[in-house]
């Protein structure tokens, strides 16, 4: 740190009397401590703008990864031969959970709302599709927008009164929501949901006349949706809407005082996330062809919550990794299936202690300055000429990326 980074000032020439300057001193002191903490925090994140994101190598590797992934069905069939469909199913399940976890990430990761009832909106999407298909004969793709809107609409109604609640209270209420939905489904609400047996015989989706049936078809279908989701949510994150949610997560009071309609944006984040879970519900229903209330229990919500926290709240890459770890990895250890929750519990505890920000935490957003600014910044005067409305040189005031080695894990955990 440089300059007088919040050092207590010599008592001001105070007509304002002794007491005032006492207070000013202690205040400055505590803020110095604040600054210290903030600086440590800065360490991890300040680097981001020049981080791997901007390097061309990173882009090439990503493209290569996507390309290899696109040939996964062929690669699998040479590697595992006849059990290819089984492994593709596993990858498809991971994909579906990725969509769900990405949608939860909008609520939990970006807006910082503790929502543990996500399975409820997943269920609403799945049942909307199933009912429209079975009872009214709609095609699956036609039910998709309706399922999405239905989940979003229910979220709007349910979240309206609770959106002001603080973290822990919201958590309890959202757990309530998932239970209410499950019980409603089990009790065959409106005579449409088939009670505890659920609904059977849902059709397959078809796209442009092509029927999606095999695991391989679903692989391309699901992972295309994953890709689209990542793209759209990436855009959303780096927009006015996404920034508003970031401000809310950082400091709701300050956000409101800077003109952000905080309750509106929280509500919108909730609705968007829920709607997307509804869309995932459509895919799920048509893939399984059978749905029942057991699929949408509380523990599903916990699983999704785990994926987001483990991977890194707010980071889509983290969520992707989290899905593979939480959903995919256990397939390699089938023998230990009943110990799965135990392992996740332990993993979460270890994470919270050593890496509370998640495996791949979100990085600072990347902004490109409009043309001309590079030159303008380069022309800023040197430190000595720190004139009145001083136009400071880059890094003139403080080293923005003073990276403390051994910085303790930052970010306030869950």
């Amino acid at each position, binding site marked *: 740190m440089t300059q007088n980074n919040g050092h207590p*000032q010599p008592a001001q020439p105070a007509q304002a009397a002794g*007491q*005032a300057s006492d207070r000013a001193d202690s*205040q400055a002191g505590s803020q110095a401590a604040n600054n210290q903490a903030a600086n440590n925090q800065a360490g991890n994140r300040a680097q981001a703008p020049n981080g791997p994101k901007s390097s061309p190598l990173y882009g090439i590797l990503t493209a290569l990864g996507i390309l290899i992934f696109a040939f996964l069905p062929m690669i699998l069939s040479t590697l595992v031969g006849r059990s290819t469909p089984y492994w593709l199913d596993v990858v498809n399940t991971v994909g579906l959970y990725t969509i769900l976890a990405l949608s939860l990430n909008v609520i939990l990761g970006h807006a910082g709302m503790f929502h543990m009832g996500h399975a409820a909106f997943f269920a609403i999407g799945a049942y909307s599709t199933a009912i429209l298909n079975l009872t009214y004969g709609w095609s699956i793709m036609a039910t998709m927008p309706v399922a999405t809107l239905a989940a979003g609409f229910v979220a709007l109604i349910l979240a309206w009164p609770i959106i002001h609640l603080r973290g822990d209270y919201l958590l309890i209420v959202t757990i309530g929501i998932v239970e209410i939905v499950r019980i409603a489904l089990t009790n065959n609400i409106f005579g449409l949901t088939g009670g505890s047996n659920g609904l059977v015989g849902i059709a397959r989706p078809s796209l442009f006349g092509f029927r999606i049936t095999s695991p391989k078809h679903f692989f391309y279908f699901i992972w295309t949706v994953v890709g689209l989701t990542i793209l759209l949510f990436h855009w959303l994150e780096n*927009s006015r809407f996404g920034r508003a949610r970031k401000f809310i997560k950082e400091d709701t009071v300050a956000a409101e005082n*800077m*003109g952000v309609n905080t309750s509106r944006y929280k509500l919108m984040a909730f609705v968007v996330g829920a709607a997307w879970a509804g869309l995932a519900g459509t895919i799920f229903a048509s893939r399984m062809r059978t749905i029942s209330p057991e699929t949408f229990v509380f523990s599903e919500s916990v699983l999704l919550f785990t994926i987001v926290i483990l991977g890194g709240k707010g980071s889509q890459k983290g969520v992707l990794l989290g899905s593979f770890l939480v959903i995919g990895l256990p397939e390699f250890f089938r023998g230990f299936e009943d110990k799965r929750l135990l392992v996740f519990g332990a993993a979460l505890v270890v994470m919270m202690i050593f890496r509370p920000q998640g495996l791949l935490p979100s990085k600072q957003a990347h902004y490109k300055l409009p043309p001309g600014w590079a030159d303008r910044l380069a022309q800023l005067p040197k430190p000595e000429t*720190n004139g009145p*409305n001083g136009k400071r040189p880059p890094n003139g005031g403080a080293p923005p990326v003073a990276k403390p080695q051994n910085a303790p894990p930052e970010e306030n955990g869950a």
Partner: protein
Amino acid sequence: MQILSLSSVTKTFGGLVAVAGVSCGVDRGAVVGLIGPNGAGKTTVFNLITGSIKPDDGHIFFSGHSIRGLSPHRIVALGIARTFQTIRLFQGLSVLENVLSGCHCRMRSGLVASLLRLPGQRREERLVIERAMGELEFVGLAGLWKATAGSLAYGDQRRLEIARALATEPKLLILDEPAGGMNEQETFELRELINLIRKRDITVLLIEHDMGFVMSVCDQVLVMENGILIAQGTPQEIQNNPKVIEAYLGLDDDD
């Protein structure tokens, strides 16, 4: 012509009367100081104006409209922006993003435009970054646009808060102890900055304990003590006001 006026505004916390029937006004284009001993109720008055807390009684008018009971974000949209006594930046976000938070209320792109990155949204995004950089340049922080807000030196953080508030395009700027914790050089620069802000036709209302600063930068001074407005006038008048002198000397005796 008054841009802001309070009439018998009262606020109690439990049994404590923090603001007791304060009536005052702020002239358009002026720089007005609000002073008083610790706990006098100055910050509470600011919180009442910006909508952070609701008055128990009384009225607040801004540009002739009652703003009593409006939520803070609506009051910002009407043209009042503030900074905080204890710095409240978005510490983990970049300097530029902090200023963009102020631009938010003057932007239009909604959910769909953002989700699909429509052309209008991209254009707006470019314009707003340009504008945010302009505000950073105005307060002298343009070179630090990439830095994390929490890593800035203390005085720079205060100025970043001002840039963020200016980005809301306010008509009235409210500063709660802007020079708190600044050194002499920084305080001097702040004075220059406030003069530049006034040239932009923005009215300024500020709380400050540094009397030299208040007397040199303000046209009008309001004095509070124990929730009551005990005096108002030009710096000259205030310095010679017996009530004010007593309020401050009385404090000394307590020590």
